[in-house]
């Protein structure tokens, strides 16, 4: 190897600093860790839900238009799950690339008592939780998933997506879905009716909820409302807001027994979709062991070490080479 040692070291240092300057820009690396000031979200109260699935129907209708999260170019109908002549109801049982929002029911024993874990039943509404520090946004290699800096909505830019499906693996709530059946597929997930919010409207699932089980609003207000409900006594009457947390329209009804848990307040470091129920959330299909920390920090712990590794490997490698090739030369001269 007749390479000049000085040239080599020069190459290593120049190359290393090039990689360093291009490969790691901590300024870009900050993931959101705080709720945006104008963050909007949804509060779902399972004790108010009657399982009418109006939210599911309207979610599909209003998201199939241009700009909606279910829109496909050229499609004439919303993407129904069942298209056989025998099945006249579109009744999805789980989230899919055609269903962004699903109402499920949990039943136990005789199933008589609403919102009770024993011999009871409870509805639950599942869709994207719009995390404060979304794992899907942090793992996406092309920034196809983004978090709106103003309202905090986690949205999707179809044109960027390469379809690696890391978002699906990373999401602790199993929200993103993929169009496996298509040759040019997209990821589908609830985008909180971002296209409707731009027009001054709000999420369809809340607008068309007849009981106020789903209400739209600023996350800060929703949190206050959720906490207020937990402090109510079962049986007492309460004016539940309908559609929006700050809408004038209220519905008076007796309070059911709540489980003392706002799901989404702490899970994955906090989310913009919060849920109240009378039945533990793990029975309703939400896993118990979702960490209450910002999950993107787990990968950042690795990524932040990369610049040091680059410098370290290049310096140690170059130094080792310099020493070992000098030894070789010395051997020859002897």
């Amino acid at each position, binding site marked *: 190897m007749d390479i000049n040692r000085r040239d080599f070291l020069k190459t*290593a240092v120049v190359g290393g600093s090039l990689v360093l300057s291009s490969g790691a820009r901590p300024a870009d690396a900050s993931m959101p860790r705080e709720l945006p000031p104008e963050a909007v979200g949804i509060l779902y109260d399972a004790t108010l839900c009657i399982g009418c699935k109006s939210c599911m129907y309207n979610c599909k209708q209003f998201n199939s238009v241009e700009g909606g999260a279910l829109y496909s170019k050229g499609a004439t109908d919303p993407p129904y799950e069942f298209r056989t002549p025998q099945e006249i109801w579109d009744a999805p049982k789980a989230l899919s690339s055609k269903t962004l929002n699903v109402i499920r029911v949990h039943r136990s024993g005789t199933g008589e008592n609403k919102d009770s874990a024993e011999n009871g039943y409870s509805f639950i509404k599942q869709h994207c939780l719009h995390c404060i520090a979304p794992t899907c946004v942090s793992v*996406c290699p092309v920034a196809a998933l983004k978090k709106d800096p103003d309202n905090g909505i986690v949205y999707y830019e179809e044109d960027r997506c*390469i*379809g690696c499906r890391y978002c699906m*693996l990373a999401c602790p709530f199993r929200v993103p879905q*993929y169009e496996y059946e298509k040759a040019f597929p997209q990821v589908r997930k609830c985008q909180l009716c971002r296209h409707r919010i731009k027009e001054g409207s709000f999420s369809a699932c809340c607008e068309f909820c007849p009981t106020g089980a789903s209400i739209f609003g600023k996350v800060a207000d929703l949190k206050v409302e959720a906490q207020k409900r937990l402090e109510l006594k079962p049986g007492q009457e309460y004016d539940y807001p309908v559609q929006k947390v700050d809408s004038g329209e209220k519905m008076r009804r007796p309070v059911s027994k709540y489980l003392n848990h706002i799901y989404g307040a702490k899970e994955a470091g906090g989310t913009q979709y919060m849920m109240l129920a009378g039945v533990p959330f793990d029975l309703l299909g939400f896993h118990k062991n979702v960490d209450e920390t910002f999950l993107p920090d787990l990968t950042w712990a690795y990524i932040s070490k990369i610049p040091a590794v680059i410098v370290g490997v290049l310096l140690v490698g170059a130094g080792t080479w310099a020493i070992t090739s000098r030894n070789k030369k010395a051997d020859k001269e002897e």
Partner: protein
Amino acid sequence: MNQNDIKMWTPTTTVLLLIMGAGGLVALYRMFFGLGAVTNLNSIWPWGFWIAFDVLGGVAMAAGGFIIAGAVYILNWKKYKPIVRPAVLNAFFGYLLAAIAIFLDIGQSFRIWHPMVMWQVNSIMFIVAIHVVLYTSTLAAESSPMIFEKLKMTGLLNFMNKIMVPVVLFGVLLSTLHQSSLGAVYLIIPSKLSPLWYSSLLPYHFLVSAVLMGLSMVSFETILSTRVFNHKPDMDILSGLAKGSLITVSLYLIMKLWDLVTVAGIGMAFTGSTSSNMYLLEMVIGVILPFILLISRDRRSNMRSIFSVNVLVIAGIVLNRMNVALFGLADYAGKTGVDYFPSWMEFALTAGMVAFAILGFKVSVKYLNLFPEEAH
């Protein structure tokens, strides 16, 4: 026996070509009809056999390239010079396999270049993508002297030889980062991956086990090539590699046990569930047996026993990647009731790519000066 005596057209070649052809048809079918038509992937199992075996396994198998190149060019351990070229070429095929698998596995194959221009530095996947591109190019550069030699392009050959040390060092750097970042991919799913595998040390586990795998692959190929060329194996090289394997497997054993005790708890390995059985299988085949076999100096200088260790390690580390990517998620997925087993087409495509790598290696053995010291 020398290169000219290698018969290209043998029954094995025919079989390999047939397997390749079948894999090619599956690849075409996938391009026209999408992932759903070919794979059994679903919403709970977004990543399947291709990611586990072709990408994670293929990249781990390729680790021999940077280890041997680093030993020869950076540490100046000239003893290993005869095996540099096959090690690097093997790495090149390993990465090619991974790159093809990624191309077919992502839903929008023709946007595979997007990460190169749409940077997102929080994403391990972005880091992985950059490394695949850079390191595959580096491996091509490291292999290029063989081609230039064959084509008698002396100018380019001299140039490549001149810049080989920095190229190799760059390769060592990229490999260190790439092997570990494949483990870091899984850091984001603490609630999904079984604690038998999930650990904040996963990147280090992937790096160390890749080094072990790389040493075994190189040794495995060296022994196979001695059979092809019908000459005596260089026991000095093989024992050296075995000693390296012993050091690596000892470190890996300690790391695995440390994680078992501190993260999962020993009891979790013996619950009798699928994941705990797979964990035990992986540990016995890939770590404990190789460690026991390698600890004796006699066995480290016995070709048959080295060969057994190699087979065990290769199987064991591939199993580890399958466990992290598939079996380690089974407990979590089981709660949702959604299962995954690869379709026959997923197997067929992988078989086709393995056949392609074997055949490519054979062609290289015949037409390139892969074993420079021995051919003369």
